[in-house]
């Protein structure tokens, strides 16, 4: 638990001096590790079974097209819901109420775009990768190369955020050291993908979604029981909780607003305790709604089902699972606020990420201490399974882009037999997975939160415009795809690099100055001869160090302050991506691409002449 203590010490030093003694969350190691081993055991048997069935490229990338709509629906949910949405959103609700709930909505609405615009056309017109769809009526070599680069970029951003999160979570919860967690997760992920390909990845995702839903349901029942299964009672409990009222009062005081009692409790159910920049919210919403449909690892899932009807069914099932989960998240988040209290949650983790886990432990312990331990261990293993499922999907998507698009189709110009294709896919997965481990370890101390925003920004500004235009616009062509992908991607990355997501040393220095001033004032007010209490003295030292280290410093881009004010670039980068794609296509007309539009358009609408994933 060293790391947690260290983390909490820093957190306390930075927080208000009046913060209560830091608490910690401690999972029962024996029970938790046993549950991890059960999950590892089950998933590895799935891999052994899947490995036997993985003989062709179609098996490896698309599970031979043999996944049913229902199975794929569960797998999509398992692929999509990361530990961040599982722990982060309920945490956000537990600390900021309404805003957290509002944030969760976009993750479901995103699937309307997937359902209506991309799922069935991709099933009908695609094969294994994004590059397959984009190169259908364009010059395949440059388009595949650019599509592969964009896929690898999106997957790497997302994978890095997931790996770092996984390492920190395991360290915090179970006390497994960071590096060991990353290596462990990495080896499992490589094992699943290299040996079991899409079949194993799919089943790991299905198992994870099942675990996640059962955990959330079980916990929701316990929370609901506390309010007698009466929703009106539940919401009154929130408004009337003195701890929530007090927490909201403190939050509002930072903005110079005084509000106490029931009014403060009611305020918890109203917007803008956390999200104070509407434009950023809208920008994030745009990236979610359009980015999900441009995520290579999500698109890839539609190649695993045999027909457009199955693709349609799978999105609808995924929407019930994902949406149902987020509705339950409300119960969990608000439940944690009522029962664990915002004070209790922030004492363990300032970001609130531990809210669900603390709630599980507490509600379980209300029955009996051992039940609390088992329940916490179960949720820890849900988090573990979640991480495994998401990272495996990402590694598979990145490997498919490199092996199928670059190696088989660009380098070998499509002349590779099944054996060679599968070998290439396996070797690539191994390399991509190993890179994931290395990056994960290297990024331990880095701020990776912006990488998820970045992944969605690139997917929504680079990938989605070119996918939609390829499927629906006759004039679209090679130049359009390349312009759209390159400009959309660069615009997203560029804007994030100069956004408030990056670390600005000057801001840290300014903060340190304030702390120093406050503490020195405190020192001056003390009776002569006495010194600051140890905690304050340490804080003063730390602030001085921070000031010295950061004064006059600039961000990675050499900036003193952000050039672009929004954390989410979508609102600017998405229109740029669309415009670049359209202008590129208009500037370099291509007769062949226009002539072939009828073919892709008939295919995507009807499935006539569909490339059967079953290539036997």
């Amino acid at each position, binding site marked *: 638990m060293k790391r947690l203590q260290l983390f909490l010490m820093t957190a306390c030093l930075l927080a208000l001096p009046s913060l209560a003694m830091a608490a910690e969350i401690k999972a029962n190691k024996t029970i938790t590790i046993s549950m991890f081993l059960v999950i590892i055991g089950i998933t590895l048997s799935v891999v052994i079974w899947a490995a036997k069935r993985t003989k062709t490229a179609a098996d490896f990338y698309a599970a031979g097209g043999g996944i049913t709509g229902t199975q794929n629906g569960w797998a999509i949910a398992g692929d999509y819901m990361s530990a961040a949405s599982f722990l982060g959103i309920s945490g956000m609700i537990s600390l900021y109420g309404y805003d957290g709930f509002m944030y969760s909505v976009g993750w*479901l609405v995103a699937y309307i775009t997937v359902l209506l615009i991309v799922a069935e056309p991709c099933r009908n017109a695609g094969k294994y990768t994004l590059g397959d769809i984009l190169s259908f009526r364009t010059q395949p070599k440059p388009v595949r190369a650019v599509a592969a680069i964009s896929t690898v970029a999106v997957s790497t951003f997302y994978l890095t955020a997931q790996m770092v999160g996984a390492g920190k979570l395991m360290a915090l919860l179970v006390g497994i050291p960071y590096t060991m967690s990353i290596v462990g997760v990495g080896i499992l992920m490589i094992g699943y993908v290299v040996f079991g390909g899409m079949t194993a990845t799919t089943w790991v995702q299905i198992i994870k979604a099942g675990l996640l839903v059962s955990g959330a349901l079980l916990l929701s029942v316990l929370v609901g029981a506390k309010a007698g299964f009466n929703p009106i009672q539940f919401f009154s409990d929130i408004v009337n909780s003195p701890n929530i009222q007090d927490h909201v009062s403190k939050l509002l005081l930072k903005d110079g607003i005084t509000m106490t009692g029931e009014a403060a409790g009611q305020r918890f159910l109203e917007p803008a305790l956390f999200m104070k920049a509407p434009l950023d919210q809208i920008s994030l919403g745009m990236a979610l709604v359009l980015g999900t449909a441009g995520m290579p690892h999500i698109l890839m899932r539609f190649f695993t089902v045999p027909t457009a009807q199955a693709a349609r069914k799978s999105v609808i099932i995924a929407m019930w699972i994902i949406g149902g989960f987020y509705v339950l998240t409300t119960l969990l988040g608000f439940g944690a606020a009522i029962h664990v209290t915002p004070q209790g949650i922030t004492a363990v983790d300032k970001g609130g990420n531990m809210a669900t886990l603390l709630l599980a432990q507490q509600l379980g312990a209300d029955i009996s201490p051992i039940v609390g331990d088992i329940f916490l261990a179960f949720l820890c293993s849900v988090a573990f399974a979640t991480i495994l499922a998401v990272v495996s999907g990402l590694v598979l998507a990145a490997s498919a882009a490199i092996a199928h698009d670059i190696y088989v189709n660009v380098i070998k110009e499509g002349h590779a037999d099944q054996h060679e294709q599968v070998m290439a896919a396996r070797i690539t997965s191994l390399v991509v997975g190993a890179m994931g481990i290395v990056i994960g370890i290297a990024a331990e101390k880095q701020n990776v939160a912006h990488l998820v925003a970045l992944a969605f920004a690139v997917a929504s500004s680079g990938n989605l415009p070119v996918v939609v235009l390829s499927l629906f616009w006759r004039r679209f062509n090679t130049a359009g795809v390349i312009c759209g992908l390159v400009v959309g991607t660069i615009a997203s990355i560029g804007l994030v690099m100069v956004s408030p997501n990056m670390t600005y040393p000057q801001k840290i220095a300014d903060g340190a100055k304030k702390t120093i001033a406050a503490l020195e004032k405190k020192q001056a007010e003390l009776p002569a001869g006495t010194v600051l209490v140890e905690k304050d003295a340490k804080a003063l030292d730390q602030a001085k160090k921070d000031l010295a280290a950061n004064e006059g410093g600039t961000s990675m881009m050499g900036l003193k302050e952000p050039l672009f004010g929004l954390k989410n670039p979508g609102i600017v980068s998405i229109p740029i991506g669309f415009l670049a794609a359209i202008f590129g296509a208009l500037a370099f007309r291509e007769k062949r691409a226009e002539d072939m539009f009828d073919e892709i358009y*008939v295919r995507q609408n009807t499935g*006539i002449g569909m490339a059967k994933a079953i290539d036997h």
Partner: protein
Amino acid sequence: MATQSYDWAAIAKNPKFIELHHRKQRFLFGWWIFSTVYYFLLPIGAAYATDLFKIKVIGVINFGYAFALSQFFVSWGLAHYYAHVANKDFDRLTRELVSELAK
């Protein structure tokens, strides 16, 4: 896999296909725009219609909460409506087109 070549331009001009494509396009883009507008009313309303969002609807549950919750039901409802229309109309038209081509 049987390789069969199709005259794609001819299929694209087939009245059945034109009907399918018109119906689909109208439905898909129309409802996509509806769902997107409905969704963005949430962050926009939360920021600029705070008085509306505060109004209590049932007990202490306010309009803002009910509206956010409605997003889930609207999405699910739309998904099922789409599946219904697709199963009934789009798939039927596609089948008719395919059997006409097979003749």
